C-alpha cells in the first residue's frame, strides 16, 4: 500500500487542478462569475452576481462541484450527496448559517448558490495578525459558534453534526459575527452509524477516525480551533491529538487559566469527559468572559498540605547554620554543621549521641563504613571517627579546605579539596594512596565506578581518571561544576553553573545531550524510573526524560534551588533557599506538601523508612514524616 503523509497527499490533489470557471462566465443566464474565492477537493467556490437584480449589485457565492468519477454508481452517489447538502442547508435557518438561494446541475457540474459573506475566515485573520489574537475576540467567536452548533445538534428530526469545524470554515463578517461555511461533509446524524472517514486532521477528534460522529466531536474541533487561534500553533503541523502536550498558557501566558480550562475540557480524548453539549460549553465561556471563574475551576484541585499539617517528628538545635547533608546509617543521623561540629543523633528520637569538634565549618555529607565515619572540614582536614562514640581514628591534611564530600570505594576515601586536588586516602591508615591535580578547587563529590573516578571542579573542567591516576578523558563546561556526577547505565550526568545539565557517555566522555535551564545549577541530579531530577538557580526543580533530555515537568519554588533532590517511593524531596522542604509527585510534578524552616536549605534530604531528614541554615536539623 502506498505510504502517504498529509502534505504529500494534498500536493497530489493540487496536481489534479480542475478547469476553473473564468470571470465573465454566466451560469443559467442568471449568475455572472466575478472570480474564484477558494477551492478544495472536488469543489470550488466563486464570487458571483445575481443578474435578476439588474439595478443593484446582489452578490452571491457559487459553489461548484465537478464530478470526475468514472464509476456510474459512485458518480450518482456524489451527485446525491451534493443535493442532500443543498436540501439540508435550505431547511436551516440560523443567523450564522448562510442562506441558500438556488441549486442546479449542468452536465457533470453541480452548483449551489448562496449568500455571499463579506469577511475573512479565521485562518486569514490569523495570518494577518502578527501577535496573538486577544482572548476576548476568541471567546466572542467561540460563544457564537457554540450557539450555531447548539442549533445544529438540536435539529429535528435528526441532529446535524457539522464534522469540520476549523478556522478556514468559520467566517467573520463585517459586523464581527461568525458564519459557518462549507457544509460539504455535514450529514444527518444517525446514532451508532459508522460513516466514511473524512475530516481535517488536526482539528478532528480521535473518535472520528473510528467513523463515529457526535456533537462531542464538534465540541472537540471547536476546542482545537480555539487552541490554534490562541497559540498560533497549527495542529496540522503537529502530531495528531497532541493539544494537551502544548498547554496554551505555556505558549501564550496572556490567556486566562479559566479559559485554558474550558478549552482543555473541550479537548478531552474521551468524548464523555467533554462538555455534554455546546450549550454548556457556551455557558462556561460566558462565565469565563465574566471572569467569575465559576465553571472553570481546575477540575483536579492540587492537594497542598499546609506545613502545620506536616508531622514533625523531631528537630535538633545546633549553634550555627547547617549547610551539609545528613547521612542516616544504622539508626543514627550523622550531619556536619558550621558550628564546626559533626553530630550523631538518634534517627528515631533526635536524641544527641555524640559530637566531634573540628576547627572549621562542615559543608559536606559524611560517609560511613565498617563503623568509621569520614568527613572533611574547612580546617583542611579529613577526619575518620568511630561511628559509635565519635572517637578520632586519624586525620589527613590537605592544603585547602574540604567542601567536597567523601566517597568510599575499594578501601579508600576519595575527596576533593580547595587545594585543586583530588585526594585518595587509605580508609584504614589515613595515608594518601595517590592524588591528582585539577584546574581549580573541587567542591563536587567524586563518583567511583569500576576503577575510575569522576569529578568536576570550579573551573568547569570535569575529569575521569583511572586508578593509576591516568586521565581517561576530560570535558570542559563553560562555568564551574559544583554539582556531583551521577552514573546511570553507562551515562554520566552533572550540572554546571553554565546553566546546563550534561549527559556524557561514561566510557569516553562523549557528550550525548545537554539540557539548558534558566540559571546556574550546583544541584546534583537524582535518577528514578527513567527520569532525572535537578534543582536550579532559576528557582525551578526540573524533571527530564533521561533518554532524550525532554522536560517532563518543572516546579517553581519561591527562591533558588541549590540543594539536591532525593527520590523515594514516588516522591521527590528537595530543599530551597526559600526555606522550604518540598515533596513533589515524581510523575506529575504536583506538590504533595512543603515544610517550612526558618532559613535557606542547601543540603540534600535523606529519606529512610517514613522519615525525611534535612538540615537548615536556621541552625536546626529536622526529621519530618515522609
Amino acid at each position: 500500500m502506498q505510504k502517504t503523509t498529509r502534505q504529500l497527499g494534498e500536493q497530489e490533489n493540487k496536481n489534479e487542478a480542475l478547469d476553473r470557471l473564468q470571470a465573465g462566465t454566466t451560469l443559467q443566464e442568471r449568475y455572472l462569475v466575478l472570480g474564484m474565492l477558494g477551492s478544495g477537493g472536488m469543489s470550488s467556490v466563486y464570487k458571483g452576481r445575481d443578474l435578476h437584480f439588474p439595478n443593484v449589485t446582489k452578490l452571491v457565492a457559487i459553489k461548484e462541484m465537478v464530478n470526475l468519477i468514472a464509476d456510474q454508481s459512485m458518480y450518482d452517489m456524489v451527485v446525491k450527496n451534493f443535493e442532500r447538502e443543498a436540501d439540508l442547508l435550505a431547511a436551516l435557518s440560523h443567523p450564522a448559517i448562510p442562506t441558500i438561494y438556488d441549486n442546479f446541475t449542468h452536465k457533470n457540474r453541480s452548483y449551489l448558490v448562496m449568500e455571499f459573506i463579506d469577511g475573512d475566515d479565521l485562518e486569514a485573520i490569523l495570518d494577518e495578525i502578527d501577535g496573538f489574537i486577544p482572548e476576548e475576540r476568541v471567546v466572542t467567536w467561540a460563544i457564537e459558534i457554540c450557539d450555531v452548533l447548539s442549533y445544529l445538534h438540536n435539529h429535528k428530526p435528526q441532529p446535524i453534526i457539522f464534522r469540520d469545524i476549523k478556522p478556514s470554515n468559520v467566517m467573520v463578517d463585517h459586523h464581527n459575527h461568525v458564519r459557518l461555511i462549507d457544509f460539504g461533509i455535514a450529514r444527518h446524524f444517525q446514532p451508532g452509524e459508522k460513516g466514511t472517514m473524512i475530516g481535517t486532521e488536526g482539528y478532528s477528534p480521535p473518535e472520528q477516525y473510528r467513523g463515529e460522529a457526535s456533537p462531542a466531536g464538534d465540541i472537540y474541533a471547536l476546542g482545537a480551533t480555539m487552541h490554534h487561534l490562541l497559540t498560533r500553533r497549527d495542529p496540522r503541523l503537529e502530531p495528531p491529538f497532541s493539544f494537551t502536550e502544548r498547554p496554551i498558557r505555556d505558549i501564550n501566558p496572556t490567556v486566562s487559566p479559566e479559559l485554558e480550562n474550558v478549552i482543555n475540557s473541550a479537548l478531552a480524548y474521551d468524548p464523555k469527559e467533554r462538555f455534554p453539549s455546546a450549550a454548556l460549553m457556551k455557558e462556561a465561556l460566558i462565565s469565563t468572559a465574566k471572569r467569575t471563574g465559576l465553571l472553570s475551576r481546575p477540575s483536579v484541585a492540587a492537594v497542598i498540605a499546609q506545613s502545620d499539617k506536616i508531622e514533625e517528628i523531631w528537630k535538633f538545635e545546633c549553634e550555627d547554620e547547617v549547610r551539609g547533608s545528613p547521612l542516616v546509617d544504622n539508626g543514627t543521623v550523622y550531619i556536619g554543621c558550621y558550628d564546626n561540629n559533626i553530630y550523631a543523633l538518634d534517627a528515631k528520637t533526635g536524641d544527641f549521641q555524640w559530637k566531634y569538634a573540628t576547627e572549621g565549618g562542615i559543608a559536606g555529607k559524611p560517609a560511613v563504613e565498617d563503623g568509621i565515619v569520614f568527613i572533611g572540614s574547612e580546617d583542611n582536614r579529613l577526619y575518620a571517627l568511630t561511628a559509635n562514640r565519635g572517637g578520632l581514628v586519624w586525620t589527613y591534611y590537605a592544603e585547602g579546605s574540604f567542601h567536597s564530600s567523601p566517597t568510599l570505594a575499594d578501601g579508600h576515601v576519595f575527596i576533593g579539596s580547595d587545594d585543586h586536588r583530588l585526594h585518595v586516602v587509605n580508609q584504614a591508615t589515613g595515608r594518601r594512596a595517590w592524588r591528582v591535580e585539577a584546574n581549580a578547587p573541587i567542591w563536587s563529590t567524586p563518583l567511583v565506578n569500576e576503577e575510575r573516578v569522576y569529578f568536576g571542579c570550579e573551573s568547569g573542567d570535569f575529569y575521569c581518571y583511572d586508578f593509576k591516576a591516568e586521565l581517561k578523558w576530560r570535558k570542559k563546561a563553560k562555568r564551574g561544576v559544583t554539582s556531583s556526577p551521577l552514573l546511570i547505565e553507562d551515562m554520566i550526568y552533572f550540572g554546571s553553573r553554565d546553566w546546563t545539565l550534561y549527559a556524557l557517555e561514561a566510557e569516553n566522555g562523549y557528550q550525548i545531550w545537554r539540557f539548558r535551564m534558566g540559571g546556574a545549577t550546583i544541584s546534583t541530579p537524582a535518577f528514578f524510573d527513567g527520569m532525572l531530577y535537578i534543582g536550579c538557580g532559576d528557582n525551578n526543580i526540573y524533571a527530564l526524560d533521561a533518554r532524550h533530555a525532554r522536560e517532563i515537568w518543572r516546579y517553581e519554588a519561591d527562591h533558588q534551588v541549590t540543594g539536591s533532590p532525593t527520590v523515594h517511593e514516588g516522591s521527590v524531596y528537595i530543599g530551597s533557599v526559600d526555606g522550604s522542604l518540598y515533596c513533589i509527585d515524581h510523575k506529575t510534578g504536583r506538590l504533595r506538601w512543603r515544610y517550612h524552616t526558618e532559613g535557606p536549605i542547601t543540603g540534600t534530604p535523606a529519606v529512610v523508612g517514613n522519615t525525611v531528614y534535612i538540615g537548615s541554615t536556621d541552625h536546626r536539623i529536622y526529621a519530618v514524616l515522609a
Partner: protein
Amino acid sequence: MPSLKEYFASIFGRKSAQKPSYAARDQRTWLYPDVHNATQMVVGTGQSVGIERSHNEDALLVLTGQLAGSQPLPDFGLFVVADGMGGHRAGEVASAVSIRTVARMITQDTVIHLLNNDHSMPESPLQDLLREALEEANRAVVEEVPGGGTTLTAAVLLGPQLTIGHVGDTRAYYIRDGKTEILTRDHSLVERLKELGQLTAEEASVHPQRNVLYRAIGQGANLEVDVFTHPLPKGGGHLLICSDGLWGVVPDDKIQRIVNNAPHPQIAAQELITAANIAGGPDNITVILVRFPKD
C-alpha cells in the same frame, strides 16, 4: 521429470529464493559462520523490492569502525534505513538523498573528530548532531526533491551507547533473551490513535489509514525529530532496523525467532526478507541487523 520451465523456476524463480532449503543454509553457513560467541559486533543487511512493487524506494547505509592499539577507540557504527514515498521516482530519490546527507554530516561531525590526534571532542552533544543531520536531510529533500518524502531511522553507536534519530515509521528494535523491545515510536496516525486508546492493536493493523504518517522528511520547513539514547543491551543482543515492508508483514515473534536462531546476522537478515516475501511482499523490505557481543 520436471519441465524446463519448472527447472528454471527452481533456479531463478521467486519460490526457490523464498524458501531457504537446508542445503542453501549450509552453504551460507560456510560463508557466514556461527557468531553467537563473537567478541566483536557483527552486521547483516538485506533489501528486496518485494513482490507487489515494481521499484525500490528504500535505502540503507552501514558504516562501522574499529581502532585498536595503544590509543584505542570505542566501537563506532552508523546504521540508517530510509523508506521513501512520493510519485515519479521522488520517493527513491528522497530516501537516497537523505541517507547520504545524514551519513555525510555524522562522518564530518563525529567520525573525523574521533580520529583527531589531540583527542578533542565535538563541541555539540551527539543528540544535537544527529538531530541536525536529519534536519539537514529534510532541507535537502524539500529543496531538491519536490513531492518526495521519506522516513529515516539512524542509529549511531559510540562505545556502549546507541543514539537514535527517527522520523516516520521505520522501526528500531532490541532483540535479546527472547525479548523484543521496540525503541522507536511510529509517527503514524494509527499509532497515535493506539497511544490514545482509540484503536486496539488489531484494529490498527487493518485500519485503512495505517500508512498515513504525520511526520516525515521532506514534508516542510520545520521537522521535529525524535532523538534518544539507549545503552546497549547488557549480556549481548541485536539491534534491528527495518522498514514497514518487514514489520508490517512478519509478526514480532517470528522476527524474534529468526534473529535468535540464525548463526549469523547476515543469514538472519536474508531469512527475514524471505519471510516478508513469503507473506506476500506487499512493500519494499529493508533490514539492518547488528549483533552485539555478550561482554
